[in-house]
């Protein structure tokens, strides 16, 4: 057994997190920054954080993750990191020539109290930022929130520092997709185009983190939301924000700065949440839902009607990020599965209340925990006490799945041992089909593997 020391008996922990179901803010900010075209993310702190964030994102995407660091030493920790950041900005524009640098902080620069806003301003004042180029920044102290908070903070900073209200309305919707994969961003754009709704989406990592092999390394691949697009978000007619934890802050920022109102929706994962997204697109975009989309929806429902015997009442444990888990819980319930354990390291009261709103009546036995000491160790203990039929989560889930012999579907961040998440979506009806294919695949593989010879089925 790999997790041989995990006891069945649950004891209350208040100080020790074991096998976390979250990570730290800056990695989320770095990921969001990569969704701006021509952007070099910059980590203002010591270089280890940056190395870790780049490595983790690289393992997840199998793509270059370019980012720079202020490389603090003990001296900068005592005297502040201003000199380091100014030098970094100069080096970056000279050597790597991005359109924009997106600076985020780390625990270290936050603890010292570096004022990145002031330092960025000084860089402009000192002429370190070439004409037509930008430096934006956000605060990402890792002792608050989680990686999702960092994503949210950077996305909000894009809105705060780049959106402009010119007084001339543009016939477009803003979509803030939340922390989803490049494939999901492609899918959101496809759905909007299919609906005939013009959108500007930010951040947008598609075209950046799913770049083709061409024989040439592009520091700044084709994809990403451009700066003019980001500016234009202040003139859009409405904003649709997906996933409260990752996206609401940015939607609020545009609202308060440029008076663009917003709808706050769950991530469009599964049937009901996607329905609401499509309806919002139709309503805010002033269009009817085309036949083609109804057909996609019908295909998803068709799979469920055909295969529901394999899904009905199956107990499922899920862990990961709050926006995904909320949507996934609803999807599982739509499939008549029972999401009995839901765990996220990301704090926030809304999480539990939203999950209970969705599942409280339908899955009364549900256990939900998030925030402090809500970790994969606890989830594993729950599973040991009352087993589940399926586990859904990031790659670290495979240690539990192997020890307990539970079918396992990888969803979330990070996925470092399989490919596919950057190319195939989990949002929209097509995404629902993909999730279903995966769930059915692992459940049926287990049935095949465990069936006695006389019970082995050809057709399923």
């Amino acid at each position, binding site marked *: 057994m790999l997790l041989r020391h995990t006891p069945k008996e649950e004891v209350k922990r208040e100080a020790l997190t074991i096998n976390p179901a979250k990570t730290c803010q800056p990695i989320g900010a770095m990921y969001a920054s990569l969704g701006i075209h021509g952007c070099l993310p910059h980590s203002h702190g010591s270089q280890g954080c940056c*190395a*870790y964030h780049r490595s983790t994102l690289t393992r997840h995407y199998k793509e270059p993750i370019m980012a720079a660091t202020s490389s603090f030493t003990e001296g900068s920790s005592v005297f502040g990191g201003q000199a380091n950041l100014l030098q970094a*900005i100069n080096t970056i524009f000279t050597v790597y020539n991005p359109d924009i640098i997106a600076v985020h902080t780390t625990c270290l620069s936050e603890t010292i109290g570096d004022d990145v806003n002031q330092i960025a301003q000084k860089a402009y004042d000192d002429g370190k930022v070439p004409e037509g180029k930008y430096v934006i920044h956000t605060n990402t102290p890792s002792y*608050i929130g989680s990686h999702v908070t960092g994503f949210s903070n950077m996305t909000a900073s894009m809105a705060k520092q780049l959106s402009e209200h010119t007084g001339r309305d543009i016939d477009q919707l803003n979509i803030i997709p939340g922390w989803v994969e490049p494939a999901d961003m492609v899918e959101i754009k496809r759905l909007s185009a299919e609906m005939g709704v013009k959108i500007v989406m930010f951040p947008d990592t598609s075209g950046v983190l799913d770049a083709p092999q061409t024989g040439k390394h592009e520091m700044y691949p084709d994809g990403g939301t451009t700066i003019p697009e980001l500016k234009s978000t202040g003139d859009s007619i409405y904003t649709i924000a997906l996933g409260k934890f990752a996206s609401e802050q940015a939607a609020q920022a545009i609202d308060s700065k440029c008076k663009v109102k917003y709808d706050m929706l769950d991530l469009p994962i599964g049937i009901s949440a996607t329905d609401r997204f499509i309806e919002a697109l139709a309503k805010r975009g002033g269009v009817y839902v085309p036949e083609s989309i109804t057909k996609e929806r019908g295909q998803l429902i068709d799979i469920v009607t055909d295969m529901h015997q394999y899904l009905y009442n199956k107990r499922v444990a899920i862990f990961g990020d709050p926006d995904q888990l909320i949507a996934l819980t609803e999807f599982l319930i739509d499939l008549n599965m029972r999401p009995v354990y839901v765990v996220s390291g990301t704090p926030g009261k809304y999480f539990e209340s939203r999950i209970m709103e969705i599942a409280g009546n339908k899955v009364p036995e549900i256990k939900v925990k998030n925030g402090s000491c809500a970790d994969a160790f606890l989830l594993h203990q729950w599973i040991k006490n009352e087993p589940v039929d399926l586990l859904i989560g990031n790659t670290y889930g495979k240690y539990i799945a192997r020890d307990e012999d539970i079918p396992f579907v990888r969803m979330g961040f990070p996925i470092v041992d399989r490919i596919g998440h950057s190319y195939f979506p989990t949002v929209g009806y097509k995404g629902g089909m993909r999730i279903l294919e995966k769930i059915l695949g692992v459940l049926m593989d287990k049935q095949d593997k465990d069936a006695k010879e006389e019970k082995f089925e050809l057709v399923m």
Partner: protein
Amino acid sequence: MSKKLKDASTIKEEILKQYPPKVARKRSNAIVVNDPAIDQEILSNVRTIPGIITQRGCSYAGCKGVVLGPTRDIINITHGPIGCGFYSWLTRRNQTKPETEDSENYMPYCFSTDMQDDNIVFGGEKKLKAAIREAYDLFHPKGIAIFSTCPVGLIGDDVHAVARDMKEELGDCNVFGFSCEGYKGVSQSAGHHIANNQIFKHVVGRDNTVKEGKFKINLLGEYNIGGDGFVIDELFAKCGITVISTFSGNSTLGAFERSHTADLNLVMCHRSINYMAEMMETKYGIPWMKINFIGAKETAKSLRKIAQYFEDKELIETVEKVIAEEIQAVEETIKEIRPRTENKLAMIFVGGSRAHHYQGLFSELGMKTVSAGYEFGHRDDYEGRKVIPDIKVDADSRNIEELDVEKDPELYKERKSAADLKKLSDKGFEIADYIGMMPDMEKDTLVIDDISQYETEKLIEYYKPDVFCAGIKEKYAVQKMGIPLKQLHSYDYGGPYAGFKGAVNFYKDIDMMVNTSIWGLIKAPWEKEKQPEISANFVSGAV
């Protein structure tokens, strides 16, 4: 006949041109056109230039990730916000094999105090103590180690005091702390040193049980990535050499505690562990010798050195027998593969010793390493230990503690007389010595310390190597340029590459890498030739 190398000084100039003047001046001293015939100085172990896009990580990574990560029966608690612990969770591929199904193994777990803002404001010591208690109550481990991340030092948490208190409180658990905050030093290297110090202080020498065995060694600086240590252990077993402890692949606290009972320390990765070797020599009288189990030639040479050190006829004979046995598969594989790899070019930019060690493997395949450098090496790793007295200690190194070590009045035992050691030294045995990478590289190769992303791409454009070795952060950018990248931290999830068996694996993997046909398919057929004119009356209505 090998290809003539392209001129290294041209590319050096070319690289420096793009930098701001101050940066260019500094980088100029870190890029050396090699000449093994003369002494050349390289600027290394100095601060990375902010914004340059470096490969380097931090002191915490060197301490918790590299040195302590592979010990399975210590509970490693990261004291800090969640990230640092999360990222160093299972990501280094240190394999471990507990003795039985019930033996302790905490390596698949990640433990963190997950500091919150109130801990930053009011201090985190209380939470740390509570976390240690919770860990102890849940698992009853023999050892608990505490690793400090960046904020810890700044807010004034004293992890060593906490460790002392908790050790006393728990009674049967060794608790010790590491001040390995990420801003200490200039790279992972500081963390190695800090790890060495604390293990030496708190663990080594606590158990005087002497294991049976005629030839007792410790293997230092071998981390069992991809199972390297298993292969080396197997070789030792065949030769009749007893491994008291390995620092720190597949290791246990108990083995560290007995390590002072060995009669020879073998140093594999000089950078990360030379401190331990020196301190053990001073305190316990165990001589150390640099060896290298990467590459068949080096493996054979290292085994012979060990046998001669012990001056035992039977051991010398057994070693020869083992080499003769193992070398067969090596030779057969080389014979098959070498025609496909001969004269190809490699570049290696990684770590603090691998950039040197792996050159031997490439040369066994007839490949030439045209350019190499360390991520966090010091001048002694490049130029040899002879330069140590000349190394200027700067502010960043000065704040890493140097332990005052003295002869242990009871446990010190001379293993070999100074005269005997000198004799071995004169034979080129690298006794308490390391000759470094540069003397081993050819004239006009290019040595670069702490290479940047920009320099990496420039080098590739210039030399067009057949394989580039580095780490995960570099991998996909290099591969996008159409050049395969071999990861030498994680081995691309393959290996082992140590010893004879590992060498065979490496040859095969490199053959696969440089000869896989996919590189030939990068261009679509219609991109290779000029596009034919699209005829006006084509059928589809697409725009």
